[in-house]
């Protein structure tokens, strides 16, 4: 949680690149605040303090922060599940409380809150019927989504028999039933195994490729780093950082060199060059892969060669 914030120490706070200025604004919040109160109206907690945000068409926007930082509250305010104490949230230029905006939104909540007594087909059919969609198109879309989230083999099983990963997938499918322009994902990778996480991230990137706008919140930094174009970092209900991920994560005054096939003599020569320019060599060694990559390589290798002991990680 501290890493992006620390890394951003040398990065500038970028409210929006010049190139993005002309893009459509899909979500806009102005001084959006939420205070939770108890039964007697006494203030319990200020979950969100004057949030100003603009999310544009075609980007993957990440809300990042530790637990209780106001990420989910922001999403609920944008979806109209909560009413703001102050300020306002606009989606597609309409107030968040307007039902009509939901025609173009898909929402995957934190825990895939679905009806456990329905099976996958019935679930998608139910949600599909809530949209103005011809029956044939609905059926086609259900088939397509079941295929896409890989639940064809479990399509007639009640959701109460589903594993967490399967529930997450059907949750995503219901969020996409109306082919939405804006997809809101609350902790999309929660409870997923590494393969599921990677698939989810691939699907999110794929959505961007289709021109969709994605708003996601997560406290898993790797997820956000991998998929988001821009992020906002919230802490205790306040916006701490906002900008492009690559900019925020780039440590401007550190250079990293990765080369293959370098001889010891060449390495010595490079060190001399660095010394000559008065720079300090922090590290020069073989790069390591991430644990996620390692695990995935092993799994993939095991699937390709069943029964063989996992070979040395590449």
């Amino acid at each position, binding site marked *: 949680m501290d890493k992006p914030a620390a890394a951003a120490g040398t990065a500038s706070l970028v409210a929006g690149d010049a190139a993005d200025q002309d893009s459509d604004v899909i979500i806009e919040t102005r001084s959006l605040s939420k205070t939770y109160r108890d039964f007697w109206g006494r203030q319990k907690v200020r979950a969100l303090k004057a949030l100003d945000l603009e999310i544009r068409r075609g980007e993957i926007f990440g809300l990042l922060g530790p637990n209780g930082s106001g990420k989910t509250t922001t999403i609920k305010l944008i*979806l109209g599940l909560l009413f703001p104490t102050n300020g306002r949230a606009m989606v597609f230029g309409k107030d968040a409380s307007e039902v009509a905006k939901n025609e173009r939104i898909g929402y995957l909540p934190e825990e895939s809150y679905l009806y456990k*007594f329905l099976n996958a087909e019935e679930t998608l059919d139910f949600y599909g*019927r809530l949209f103005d969609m011809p029956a044939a198109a609905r059926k086609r879309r259900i088939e397509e989504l079941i295929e896409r989230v890989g639940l064809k083999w479990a399509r007639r099983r009640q959701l109460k028999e589903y594993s967490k990963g399967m529930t997450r997938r059907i949750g995503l499918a219901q969020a996409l039933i109306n082919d939405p322009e804006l997809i809101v994902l609350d902790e999309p990778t929660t409870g997923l195994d590494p393969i599921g996480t990677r698939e989810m991230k691939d699907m999110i990137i794929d959505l961007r490729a289709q021109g969709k706008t994605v708003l996601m919140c997560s406290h898993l930094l790797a997820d956000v780093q991998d998929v988001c174009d821009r992020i906002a970092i919230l802490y205790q209900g306040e916006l701490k950082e906002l900008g492009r991920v690559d900019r925020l994560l780039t440590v401007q005054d550190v250079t990293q060199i990765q080369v293959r096939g370098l001889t010891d003599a060449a390495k010595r020569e490079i060190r001399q060059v660095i010394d000559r320019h008065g720079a300090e060599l922090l590290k020069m060694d073989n790069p390591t892969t991430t644990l996620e990559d390692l695990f995935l390589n092993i799994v993939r290798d095991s699937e390709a060669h069943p029964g063989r002991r996992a070979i040395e990680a590449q």
Partner: protein
Amino acid sequence: MELEKEILPILDWLVPSVRGPGALVVFLAIASGLALISLFIGYLRMAIRLGPGEGFYAVAKAMGTAVASDFPRTVPRRIWAMTRLAMQEAIRRRVLIAFGVFALVVLFAGWFLDRESDHPARLYLGFVLTTAQFMILVLAILLSTFSLPADIKSKTIYTVVTKPVRASEIVLGRIFGVIIVNTAILALMGGISYFFVVRGLHHRHEIAVEDLELAPGDAGAKQGVTTREAHHRHEVTVNAEGRGQTDMIMDHNHEVWAEGTGGVQTLVVGAPQGALVARVPRYGKMRFMDRTGRPAEGISVGKEWSYRKYIEGGSLAAAVWTFRGITPDAFPETLPLEMTLSVFRTYKGDIVSGILGTMTVKNPRTGLSSEPITFTAREYTLYRHEIPRKLKAVQADGTLKDVDLFESLVDEEGNMELWVQCSERSQYFGMAQADVYVRSGDAPFVWNFCKAYIGIWLQMVIVTCFGVVFSTFLSGPVALFATAATLVVGLFRVFIISVATGEQVGGGPLESAVRMVTQLNQTIELDMGKPIEWTIRGIDAVLMGVMWLAANVFPDYWAFNTSDFVASGFNIDGNLLGQHCLIALAFFVVLTVYGYFFLKSREIAA
């Protein structure tokens, strides 16, 4: 059967007339009043939260959204999707078990019902209808109050309200879903209970030709007694051809006929008839004459229930019914009259033989009256009399002449008067308007039975609406309690109103509680010192106001209960059923609108 309120034709009931403002006006007045009060409360709530100006804006916006956007865009497709969901939820939660329990209760009911009752049909019908009513209402409360709160608690509602679904569609979907499931269960209950009643009342007697004896008087007629079946036996009288009928026992009789020829003739006793009927009564307007023959109110004999008034025997006191629409087309052969009079004795007399009375048919225009027809009134026993077309009328000089009923004793507009008098001195006949009627035919019993179930269905619909509406802003158990409270208030409405208006002796709820604890008689003054008495009565005044309001706003469930008609063998008037349908519709509309606003104004994720 007792009919405390006259059943008006549906249009007379609905629109303003001399009788009153009409149900439509009353509904509009109450609905407008409720709307204004609700708007005011809504504004107060928002004004406290947002300030007076913003509060007003918020209320106006909510109203605007409802009228301009949400109500017009409420579409059947989404309502049906929500309905299906509620149905699937109920079915997958094995709600059909309720029907199984009902079937089980009915299956073993025969063991516990009094099979020697004088009115077995009334007993059986009363039992099945009451059981079905109780079970379906409990089921409606459970299904309607827990569904939405469970969705909110498990947060599944998040995935629904983030789709283009209006709050009205969610409320309507829940209501329809619960109604459809309960309708299916109620239909199954209806089927099984009809079968139970018909099978339970069915029996066959036997009688042997050789057991018959010659009947006195009538040449060739014979009489005898059937075998004992279903805890009773009948006396039989057959004519020379072997055709006849049994006497009426346990509200039914049997046809008897001979089969076979010559020496091997056998008598067959048919299936019971008359037990399951749906009489269509034609009621008249009743008025009283006092002991001197002048128009007056009937006498009260001191009974608490003032439904029936009494006339004194051996005097000119009479009860007069004016019937309309008495035409030869409607009654081509005879005019079938039925009456159930109450008897009040000031001395015991001959307790077995009943009290003698007379009835006279009179032309209201000419005053020509028939010869008095004598009858014997027994307490709570139905007396039937067929007035023939040809009968004798008493002329001004006291002589009798033969007249035709419709030509001389009914006026040109088809009006006819029936004068009932008690013949025995110091004894009294008690009667209410519905105690005497012309039986204008019978409706199919099956349809009448269905109509009783429709009455139960309407109660279920209203309970469901209340349950769903309460569940839009209360948690499951609290919504259940609130819905059950409306049912209790609705069932004891008359009593609650009498407490709220101070008609009941002993004060309001708090004063009654004090009296109970201190064991103080209802009629004694409290005598606790003026300040305490004022405090108690002050709090009571507020509580009684709330009780009055609740009793008047919540439905009168008792009025929907038409099972008494079926159990007593009377057709449920279409006008009555129509009125009940419209009342239920009114509750449905108002409650759906309330449900919409409650759900719309609720922070789902709070």
